[in-house]
């Protein structure tokens, strides 16, 4: 195809199509979502958790990182017990005398931060790879998709474990490992969607207008393919958080200075046999509440967007 030096015509920005406008389908989807009581509960729980995460420094009774504020004499106290200073440990303390409630609030922050940043990065990288594969086709497509198949052929935990065994510990390294195991999913979904879109007239029109490839990909193809990718990303946030917690539990995840929920649970493991259940149980419940609410919303979202229903 001939590529003119510059576009033959320009489009008035105010007339540019808005891919996420209020449409009858969109209203129907929202209606379907609202009709489920479990979704309501999950949304409320998630909003509460997010509020707690944002307000953690103000809500938590103690700064769990301030070693000076900890009293070893308060170590492994039962929930509801009172400290020497008169403060009540609602959820008990760990072996260092750290208030579990404060530790959980801060742990939620780290877990959520790692999960969100990993998913955002993986979505960007994966979507771009899928887009490039679908747009160019040919050997580019073959090579990229073979790499995707290769990565998806292995269980995530194994790939992440081995990556971290090589990279070492650290929040950034955990994020890299999660991105490495997740991006391929997005690439596959994006490619499938983009292959369908690519044949439509508006892409053809954009090509004939002489727009460069990158512009067609990012301005035309991408906005129309994001739907399924975003739904998948919702569920992947929960998976990323679980993966981070698991890796931290196994001792290859976040460092001890930045304890996520997984590390808190791991820390309580050695005291579990002596019946000190609270050190592991409460961070786990917080983790479960977070994952369950994300999963419920994601599950219903997928159901509502399923064209077969």
């Amino acid at each position, binding site marked *: 195809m001939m590529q003119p030096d510059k576009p033959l015509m320009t489009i008035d920005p105010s007339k540019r199509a808005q891919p996420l406008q209020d449409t009858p389908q969109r209203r129907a989807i929202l209606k379907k979502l609202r009709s489920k009581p479990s979704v309501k509960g999950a949304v409320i729980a998630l909003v509460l958790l997010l509020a707690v995460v944002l307000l953690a420094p103000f809500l938590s009774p103690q700064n769990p990182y301030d070693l000076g504020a900890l009293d070893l004499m308060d170590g492994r106290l039962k929930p509801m017990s009172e400290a020497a200073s008169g403060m009540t440990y609602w959820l008990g303390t760990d072996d260092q005398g750290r208030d579990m409630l404060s530790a959980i609030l801060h742990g939620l922050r780290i877990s959520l931060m790692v999960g969100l940043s990993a998913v955002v990065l993986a979505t960007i990288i994966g979507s771009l790879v899928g887009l490039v594969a679908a747009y160019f086709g040919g050997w580019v497509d073959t090579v990229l998709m073979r790499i995707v198949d*290769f990565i998806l*052929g292995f269980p995530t935990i194994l790939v992440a474990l081995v990556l971290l065994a090589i990279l070492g510990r650290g929040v950034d390294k955990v994020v890299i490992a999660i991105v490495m195991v997740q991006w391929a999913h997005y690439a596959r979904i994006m490619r499938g969607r983009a292959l369908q879109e690519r044949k439509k007239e508006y892409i053809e029109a954009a090509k004939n207008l002489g727009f460069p490839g990158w512009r067609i990909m990012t301005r035309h193809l991408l906005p129309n393919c994001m739907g399924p990718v975003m739904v998948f990303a919702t569920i992947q946030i929960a998976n990323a958080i679980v993966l981070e917690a698991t890796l931290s539990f196994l001792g290859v995840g976040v460092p001890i200075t930045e304890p996520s929920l997984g590390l808190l649970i791991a820390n309580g493991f050695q005291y579990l046999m002596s*019946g000190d259940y609270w050190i592991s149980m409460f961070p786990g419940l917080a983790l479960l509440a977070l994952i369950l609410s994300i999963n419920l919303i994601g599950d219903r979202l997928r159901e509502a967007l399923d064209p077969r229903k």
Partner: protein
Amino acid sequence: MIVYILRRMVQSFLVLLAVSLVVFMAVYAVGDPIELLVSAEASDADRQAMIKRLGLDLPVWLQYWSFLTRAFQGDLGTSFVHGIPAIELIVQRFPATFELVVVAIGLTCLLGIPLGLIAGLFNDRPLGRGLMGGSVLGFSLPNFWQGMMLILMFAVWLQWLPSSGRGDTVNVLGVPLSLFTADGWSHVMLPAINLALGNIALVLRLTATGVMEAKTQEYVKFARAKGISERRILTRHILRNILIPVVTVIGMEFGTLIAYSTITETVFAWPGMGKLLIDSIYKLDRPVVVAYVMLVTFIFVMINLLVDLAYAVLDPRVQLQEAP
């Protein structure tokens, strides 16, 4: 058919080759391989001998070639910690992991399929909805925490089952197995439940959706119109049709469970391959990590190959040519 099998085998071989290249790059080419492959306590002479033995003075592609040839001879390095070939160490631990995975798959079939049938048949009643809702919980429970809560419940509070180790084993054909002793069974129960729970939820949902879809199909309506009993419709018509994907998933999960057993084995101190991997990562015992990755990849590739072949044999619609 033979062409198909051969082509799939060549593909599998290429995957193994690719993994070996990635592992080689990770361990030998990135960073200082001597740092990784010689323990910190080694003397300078040992170091030089190692460089010579591993051929680290050669060009990179020659190094990869020698890594490959040694790998084909079954030499994936010697464990620093245990002083025996890494591959031997892993093979010793294999029966424990295998046993755990087999029991977990047994539990998945025994619980997941019947519960899925119930959930699918009664999907408009509280029982069915409760089961489907419960399966979301089964997905969401972080595996390691769920295992710890099992320990807390059954080992610490109720004191019904032991929390760690493998229990008494009996040698069967020279392989120590714990499935032939009561003590062994009591040890395997909690880890197996821990490993199986996510898969039970998966199989439950898969079966339930299959039943829900099949219920409205023409062939079921026709069977009902013919006056066939509901029981027979279920076992002969519905079940037969939905079991193919379910069985495939269970088969594919076999490899995944081997990988996920690393978590279960760590929680329950089960002396299998997964525990060995984690211990080796802690102790920087790189040859064992390399050998584990190569071996598990091999198992994985073999399972995928077998599943594909079984599919081709069972389902005549599957084309024996490569998909376009």
